């Protein structure tokens, strides 16, 4: 069973019962989080992104998948992973992306007979893979820079 970090059990029950309203709240929370990212405040954005991601994931897991929801879920995971990475939580970033990627890959397997659906999911999967690569690269470059500065000192 999925463990939720940002939303409580009561909130989950509400999402279960009101997926449509919950998805509207995802969009509202995402706007707030995007504004914080724009203001270069990733640590403040993380709780918003985390809540929005978990709400979207609950709806997704209930097989109420829609293209808009899946696109939002993917975008949220990428933004949250970048926010994690920029606050030094690279492992959490990678774990999150891996977690969603396996879900999307399951969806691709489920949709294998339906070529057009697969194309859609593959866009999401590629975006996740690409974000994961960017985060790994950024982390590696930061490590090199830290090592360099240690040598200088």
């Amino acid at each position, binding site marked *: 069973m999925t463990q939720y970090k940002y939303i409580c059990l009561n909130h989950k029950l509400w999402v279960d019962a*009101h*997926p*449509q*309203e919950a998805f*509207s709240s995802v969009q509202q929370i995402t706007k707030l989080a*995007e*504004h914080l*990212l*724009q203001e270069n405040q990733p640590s403040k954005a993380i709780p918003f992104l985390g809540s929005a991601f978990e709400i979207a994931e609950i709806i997704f897991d209930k*097989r*109420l*998948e*829609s*293209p*808009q929801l*899946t*696109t939002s879920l*993917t*975008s949220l995971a*990428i*933004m949250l992973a*970048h926010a994690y990475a920029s606050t030094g939580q690279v492992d959490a970033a990678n774990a999150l992306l891996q977690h969603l990627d396996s879900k999307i890959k399951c969806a691709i397997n*489920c*949709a294998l*007979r*339906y*070529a*057009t*659906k697969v*194309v*859609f999911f593959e*866009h*999401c999967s*590629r*975006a996740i893979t*690409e*974000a994961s690569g960017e985060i790994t690269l950024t982390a590696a470059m930061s490590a090199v820079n830290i090592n360099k500065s240690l040598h200088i000192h």
Partner: protein
Amino acid sequence: MNKSSITLALLLTFSLTACVDDGDDGLQGVAGADGVSGTNGTDGVSRFVTRTDVITSNANIAYAAYADSLISAKNMRDVFTTFIATPSQANFSSAKQAWLAAREPYGQTEVYRFREGPIDTVLADGTLGEDGDGPEGRINAWPLGEAIIDYVAVEVDGDSGPESAANALSGNVIANTADYPNINATTILSVIEFGEDERNVTTGYHAVEFLLWGQDLNQDSSGSGDRDSSGGQRPVTDFAVTMGQCTSGEVAVTADICTRRGDYLLAATDVLIADLTTIVKAWEPNAGIHYTAFVAGGDESLAKILEAMGRLSYGELAGERINIALKTDSQEDEHSCFSDNTHRDLFLNAKGVQNTFNANYTRIDGEQIEGASIYDLMVIEGAHELANSLRASLEATMAAAAVIDTKAKTGTPFDILIQEGIDQPNLVAVINTLVTQTDYIEQAIVALGITANDLRQDTDEDIGG
């Protein structure tokens, strides 16, 4: 059944339909036809609609989207008034947010271009002229002639076009107090297409954008070399009205220049509001000069809807807005180059096409508008497999556009992506999905037995190869 239950049921229905009905095998399409006998779509795949229903829904959504654009523009003016009176950093940030918010509904209206609608035909007096007489150029034209408006760097990306400082009229409008003692709507309209060069754009969303962000010259202010992830660097002191604090970038200038810059900002917004008001009036349900003619237009109107979807997808979006920028790697060819908001332009334009197909639109206050869709019509007229393919191609485009959108929000905006060159995979993916959806739109036109103009007439670009 209450409203939320119906919504949930619809959500479930569409979701399950998408799972079993998006196939290419034709057999699954039979399930799609079941919807015809459903009760108002609540227990079926589709619902019964007529061509007139589809056209009317399209017109109603057009009205809502333009009305939202007007509301946002008016809100923007209110925020600007506060900012100009008190040019603090916080108010500057609010002014920029108001511009970004105003772009959200407008971006979704661009699918109402390319169809002889009010945006392309309505005159200032509210009557309809010829195609091309409308206010589109005043509202959203780009690239901007920024050197005619205000101070600029001599060259950006090695490109010194007609609007470069070197070629600008002697002293830009804001600096030239002798020739332009007052700055108001009349002043800025008098310099539009200055020197009979249509590239000299001085009004619209992008004039406002330039006045808020300034040129995007990168952190080293070089205007060349590797770009950074931020937009333009205009300082808030460009609007300072306190003696001795007004600047034009890094140069201290007299306070009247900052006052004039504020005047220009308001004048450009006033022109925008006036133009949007005329368009909204023309689309007013059951009363607007265009609305009534369009709804009564039958197959000709239906053809225009699909033609515009295709022409925006192919020539404008895939061609002019993405492919050219990729080829030239120039911010001059980037739509919202000052604010680095081009990712939203692309996403919202594509969203407008999808909205049109699905006959839905989310208003700026969150209200969901839904109507009779082209999807429904195609299913009813027997083209269910093509309807599903077209719907899926639009979803693929939205997924690809969302990648660009998310990349910008995580530090890699459009102007950095185009630096990677013509094969930049994320942008090529959007181009390819747009070309695919254009192919399906062409097939839909044939399937519905209507006649439209060439969907690929708006660009000379060789795209989607």
